[in-house]
């Protein structure tokens, strides 16, 4: 019995509530509530701002990847394969002596046209200079056309033009394919840095989470003070703000994490697309490579295109952030107003 009482006394003296009560004992209630109001407003404002900025950045990264970076990487891979395929088709045409057959050049022409259109589409999605590749592609196309049309009756001139075209396409470092390869590598690097979370963004997330933690603790403290000193058990505004704080600490973070996972997956697939297009150089592998790239590109588009729920989370965060500032302030202002300010 004596032991039980001792434990009870000890708890009353050393419980967190007791410790906090002692800590706040030299503050007057009004001042205490005003300080809580100030801290809550500051924490809520910082948390809401940091949360919105960092979530928006994550969203921007995802948008940039889906609307610019990924299509540019996919487009460069597809262009490279299309132009190699055109060369292959033209080679078949010449080696099988099909140049004279009506309509036989359709296959390589359509691939060339696809490559040309691919470059046009990429142009407004990349900051890289495509002028040289465009010019080389036009020269390549010209040589190929001369070989398959103008010199169809002159085997040596035809061979010369086809070889010239092939050199324009594949010569290491300066050909169309190696240049597209280099552009693809650069674009991939760009895509990686777009998808990755930078130092500032990471810091903003930490700031948001820390501010939310501070807000939650301050809300608990405010509830405690109201109960301990004013005899008000549950302030609905502060309770709602607390629930909202927990939600805002968890939901955007989860959403961001899911988005980051999607971006990582997309980057891995873009890397695969790059590898496939680099490894596919000739033979049947080329057609298979084209199909692979098309399929993987579809996949990436699907993954990055499904972003409606992240928009909703952002809108929710925006409204939640405003409420986070308004609710605790309202709760405490109303209390202070009825208990102190109006009585002045």
């Amino acid at each position, binding site marked *: 019995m004596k032991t039980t009482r001792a434990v009870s006394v000890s708890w009353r003296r050393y419980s967190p509530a007791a410790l906090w009560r002692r800590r706040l004992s030299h503050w007057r209630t009004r001042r205490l509530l005003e300080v809580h109001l100030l801290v809550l407003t500051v924490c809520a404002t910082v948390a809401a701002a940091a949360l919105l900025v960092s979530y928006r950045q994550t969203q921007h990264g995802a948008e940039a990847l889906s609307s610019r970076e990924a299509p540019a990487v996919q487009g460069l891979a597809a262009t490279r394969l299309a132009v190699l395929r055109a060369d292959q088709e033209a080679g078949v045409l010449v080696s099988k002596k099909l140049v004279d057959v009506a309509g036989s050049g359709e296959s390589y022409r359509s691939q060339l046209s696809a490559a040309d259109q691919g470059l046009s589409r990429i142009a407004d999605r990349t900051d890289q200079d495509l002028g040289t590749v465009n010019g080389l592609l036009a020269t390549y196309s010209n040589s190929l056309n001369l070989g398959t049309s103008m010199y169809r009756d002159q085997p040596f001139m035809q061979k010369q033009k086809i070889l010239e075209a092939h050199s324009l396409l594949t010569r*290491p470092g*300066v050909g169309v394919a190696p240049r597209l390869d280099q552009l693809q590598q650069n674009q991939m690097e760009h895509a990686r840095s777009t998808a990755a979370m930078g130092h500032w963004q990471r810091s903003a997330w930490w700031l948001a989470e820390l501010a939310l933690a501070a807000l939650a603790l301050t809300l608990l403290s405010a509830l405690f003070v109201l109960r301990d000193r004013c005899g008000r058990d549950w302030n609905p505004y502060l309770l709602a703000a607390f629930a909202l704080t927990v939600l805002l600490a968890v939901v955007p973070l989860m959403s961001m994490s899911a988005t980051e996972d999607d971006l990582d997956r997309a980057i891995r697939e873009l890397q695969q697309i790059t590898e496939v297009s680099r490894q596919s150089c000739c033979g049947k592998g080329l057609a298979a490579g084209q199909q692979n790239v098309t399929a993987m590109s579809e996949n990436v588009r699907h993954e990055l295109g499904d972003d409606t729920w992240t928009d909703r989370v952002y809108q929710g965060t925006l409204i939640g952030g405003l409420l986070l500032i308004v609710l605790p302030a309202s709760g405490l202002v109303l209390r202070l107003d009825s208990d102190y300010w109006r009585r002045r």
Partner: protein
Amino acid sequence: MTRRFKMLVFLVVMLLIAAAGLVVVWAQQDDEEPVTILGTWTADQETHFKEVLGSFGIPFRYQGTAAQREVLLSKVQAGEPPDIVIMPGIGELSEYADQNHLKPLDRLYDPRQYGSPWNSTGTADGHVYWVPVKADLKSIVWYREGHKPADSPAPLESWCMGMGDDGASGWPGSDWIEDLVLQRNGPEFYQKWALSKDRVNWWTSNQVRSAWEAWAGLLKQNRDAAKHALLTDHRGVAGSHGLLFEGGWKGCSLEHQGSFASSFYGPADAKQARLMDSAPLLPGGPDRVRAHEVTGDFAALFSDRPQAKELIERLASKEGQQKWARTADVFSANRQVQLPGGSAEREIAERLKGNGPRCLDASDVMAPAVRDAFYEAVLLTIARIADRQDPAIEGLLTNVQKVQKVQDAQRSLSDNRAAPSTVCST
């Protein structure tokens, strides 16, 4: 004013200054878009050139391609020309100048530092539109050390020939024809032909036809070797050491190529490469050396951005040219620049700067349409010979002459103010 108020005013002023500074820095960053340069140099020369450009401290973006004429045309037509272009084709540059695409380089370099025939003071409107930033010697033959040929025409099997290039195949053959025309007829005729002076049918003249026939005669000596030349790139297979050391016709030991060929050989083999004048070895010879064909890579401005102008100014200066010559072992047309010092290099420098007459590469001076017809006629000549057909040189030259006439007619309609009026130094 209280002390606190003064402090506040001081802080506000400091903040305003800091903000203004930030705005200035920001604006400067915007203005420092790199200078875009399109040139012909790739591989090692590209690396060296970038090194030289880097030392000027002006942000730049260089793209090198052998298909530079086509790339430039596509960029100009797309409305996105590079700030600076570096190319050998003066004929092409003068067309761009006539279409008001080029900005004058007046006062950006001292033309007195550049001797004839590289300086372009001969342009009709008095403005300068291009400056040579690299010079090369032609009318020479490369051979491997210890294999010096006799001073007499060499058989086709001795020649390492390749007509291929990225987009401008055939020019190595046009060099043969030009050299033959120059060594057989001298600079005066060569200049008239290159500039299509007085609207004479130079292409179908006896002099050009006989030079062409002499070259065709050489090719007829071995049709397989002719076929090999047609289907071989003038640089050799990618990664090889040029035609003279690897990849040429089996057993070949001579290469009729400009001084830039040593860059294809690689540093080790280039040390084993020696050169001599081509005149004694040309078919139908031996001829005496009447002049040397030379070529240059000329820088021209497509924009009037101050950074681009400054970059050309630095590059064309004696210091810039000296640095470029030292870094990449290339030759400068700037008379004040000391040229590289190996034995072959000394021989090239003597010919580039000596007292003998020098003529610019004729096809570089011609209008692009004529030049392309010239290259194609060269290729057709070899292809027909390889295919055991009559090359029908008369017909080929008549066709080129037709293209030339159309160009002459077009030129007479335009003011044609930028076209050079001389090709050879006296």
